[in-house]
């Protein structure tokens, strides 16, 4: 019998119970190479298998089918197949990890990566976003788990400019990571999505994670993230200091070398610190090309805009009412009309509280009306408290877990003194 036919029969037969599936897994691994050899004949095979029941088998066949170069027309046909599979497949079956490589590379991941390549080739990244989201959710062991699919999904979101879908996955906290590289990409793309949605605080947090992650050598993702980090800091906080930018827990590599690659941005930040808008704009003008090459020009323009905003905000601290003409003069705008537009925009964005009296050309600055007395505020505070308590519990749990970890104890035992004052009966087992 045709080995392929035999395989199909086995797949169909052994896909029901977990014990069978384990056996099927072994068989499929052995048959992997032969499958790859026959990649051209596999499309009818795919038709015979049902993605929801025979997920594992389908997956291996799909893997073999999509390996190798695929042209645009082939991509057209295979994308819907993969999409259909992802939507229908059984989550447990696809999580079975192969032990063949150290990197724990799931075959589903390979398949999804190929999907991504194909939709990029077809120049329709949005077609891949949805399926990848489903795949990521299915592959995750828990919502705190980061899979390689997350970063690919976010990349497609960025390319397709559908930020809101990306945001949904960013709301989850990540604690477990398979591959550091995934984390870098995830945080970087996540930061870009948040910037696109103007959620600068979250973007700062994500970019901060990239920049301060432990790394032994500098990588390009960290450099790019650092550039954006500087710009977003300026927009959100209005200041950025080179000396305090990287906390002590950032890797020494980062602390030493990151700034060498981001010179124009650091100079931009110092020019921002002088609070002279003309200088800032001049600097941006002269360095437009460099910013353009990094694809950061839009962000830089937002930085310049934020300076006006910050100056106007400072005025709210010293004045109760101020004429539009005076605002224009102090903030170095060209006319009261422009000042009015700026102030109006800021009121709408909720950045200041004010009323504009057009008849007198006066702006009246008001206090923040938030009194912290409403039910919503109380619920907000309450949920924050619960969240932080959960986090503390998690932290203690992790602490306990590490103290019991064998590797940790062996290392600590080695470095500890033979005899502490308190305990004379140090178990020698740990002094390896």
């Amino acid at each position: 019998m045709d080995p392929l036919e035999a395989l199909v029969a086995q797949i169909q037969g052994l896909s029901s119970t977990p014990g069978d599936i384990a056996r099927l897994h072994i068989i499929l691994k052995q048959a992997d190479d032969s499958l790859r050899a026959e990649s051209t004949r596999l499309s009818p095979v795919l038709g015979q298998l049902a993605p929801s029941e025979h997920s594992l088998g389908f997956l291996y066949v799909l893997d073999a089918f999509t390996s190798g170069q695929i042209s645009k027309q082939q991509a057209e046909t295979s994308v819907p197949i993969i999409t259909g599979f992802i939507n229908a497949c059984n989550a447990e079956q696809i999580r079975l990890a192969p032990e063949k490589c150290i990197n724990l590379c799931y075959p589903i991941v390979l398949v999804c990566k190929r999907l991504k390549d194909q939709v990029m080739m077809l120049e329709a990244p949005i077609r891949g976003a949805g399926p990848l989201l489903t795949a990521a959710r299915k592959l995750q062991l828990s919502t705190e788990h980061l899979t390689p699919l997350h970063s690919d999904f976010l990349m497609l979101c960025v390319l397709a400019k559908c930020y809101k879908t990306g945001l949904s996955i960013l709301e989850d906290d990540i604690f477990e990571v398979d591959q550091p590289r995934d984390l870098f990409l995830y945080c970087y793309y996540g930061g870009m999505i948040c910037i696109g949605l103007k959620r600068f605080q979250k973007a700062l947090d994500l970019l901060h994670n990239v920049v301060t992650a432990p790394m032994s050598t500098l990588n390009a993702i960290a450099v790019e993230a650092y550039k954006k980090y500087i710009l977003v800091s300026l927009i959100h906080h209005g200041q950025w200091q080179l000396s305090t930018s990287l906390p002590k827990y950032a890797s020494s590599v980062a602390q030493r070398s990151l700034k060498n690659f981001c010179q124009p941005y650091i100079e931009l930040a110092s020019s921002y610190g002088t609070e002279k808008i003309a200088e800032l704009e001049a600097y941006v003008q002269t360095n437009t090309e460099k910013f353009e090459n990094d694809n950061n020009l839009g962000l830089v323009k937002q930085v310049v805009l934020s300076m006006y905003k910050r100056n106007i905000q400072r005025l709210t601290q010293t004045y109760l009412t101020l004429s539009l003409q005076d605002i224009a003069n102090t903030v170095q705008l060209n006319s009261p009309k422009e000042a009015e537009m700026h102030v109006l925009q800021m009121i709408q964005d909720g950045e200041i509280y004010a009323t504009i009296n057009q008849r007198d050309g006066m702006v009246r600055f008001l206090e923040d009306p938030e009194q912290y007395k409403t039910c919503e505020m109380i619920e907000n505070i309450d949920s924050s408290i619960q969240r932080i308590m959960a986090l503390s519990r998690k932290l203690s749990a992790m602490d306990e877990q590490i103290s019991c970890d064998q590797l940790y104890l062996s290392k600590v035992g080695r470095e500890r003194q033979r005899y502490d004052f308190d305990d004379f009966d140090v178990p020698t087992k740990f002094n390896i």
Partner: protein
Amino acid sequence: MDADDESSNPMIDEIYANGGSAEGGGGEKRSRRLIISGDQFDIEAYASLYSGRTKIARLLFIADHCGGDNSAMQLEALRMAFDEIKKGENTQLFREVVNKIGGRLGPDYTMDVAWCEAVDRRAEQKKEKLDNELNAYRTNLIKESIRMGYNDFGDFYYAHGQLGEAFKSYVRTRDYCTTSKHIIHMCMSAILVSIEMGQFTHVASYVSKAEQTHEALDQITAAKLRCAAGLANLVSKKYKLAARKFLETAPELGSHYNEVIAPQDVATYGGLCALATFDRTELKASTLTMIMLLNDDCEISFVFLILILYLQAKVIDNINFRNFLELVPEVRELINDFYSSHYASCLEYLANLKANLLLDIHLHDHVETLYDQIRHKALIQYTLPFVSVDLQMMASAFKTTITGLEKELVALITDNQIQARVDSHNKILYARHADQRNATFQRVLETGRVFDRDVRSMLLRTNLIKYDYNARSLSRKL
């Protein structure tokens, strides 16, 4: 602001430089501000307050700083300096002054070469004699004589204007001092020379050295040391400390320290620094209580008597300082006005005094800063008791325009010195008190958010490190 050190110190250094490299160099560093001539400034009276080298230094300073169109005062100062120098033995300074005079004062005040040579010859002879004596003493190893020898050397160098050498000689006596009297003498000489040289760090260290001697100091010496310390603080811009030191000076000082400072100066420096840096309670306790006691009615004085009993230590000084303030009635009026909120007249007095103060050798650099501080304090104090202030009235109280006043107030508000906001439309200043409750809520929420974020990042990083470590140990095992 011209409160830099570099404006007057290089000039003094040039005048007193040992190598004499500054002939005619003093002329370059003319004062940057032309001062309106203070007609009230009486040079003779001023100079009579001082003696010794500081008199000459001050006269020269005045000559340099009184401005090009006031040649009368300049010449007067130079003439008096000339006379004073002729009484001494400093040929270096003599040449300087002659250059500056440039023959404008007639034949009596030109270069007297004969005199110079005579003085120089005498100096050489004296130096040789002193040298021989010192060597003799050194071979004999008699401590007291060696000390006297070095002291004589110090005096000699000082008289001839070689201040660096003088300082070194005085310091060398340190090893041969046996009693605390000797130490005090050494310290006082070192302080004197350091002040002339403009090295006030030495002044501060020698003052503390002198104060640390075991024996109790007599009143006059203690007062002198306080003055010197005050001067050192003033020059290093620690105005509050300077004020304290000056206020602690005992009135027994009188004219005993005329080679450095006159009692009028103590009052002026101390008063201005106190005005610029003390808050209201300190100001009252240290300078005003006694004044008010003498001016007000009996029942008020009874209240103050209670206050005095509480503030015993400061009261003793009050009386002291009041004696000083009597010598400069303008400063006393000034402080009184400030305290009783007559800011316009207070600032007027200040403006009148300014011209004269700019001619003072020590206060010259600090006048601007002190004046600014005093003005700011006046503005802040004016707005403190009110919920709303009409800027029109405030401008007239300070004799300034509304726009100017508004600018100053905005600067103070931005600096967080005044808690208020300006209603630019109606020209009113409204006091604004921070809402503690809201601020607390905001801080709490922010802290929570920061904690949340930090712990999450930490857990993430821990995971990464654990992964890394696992991967490495795994690869090692393989």
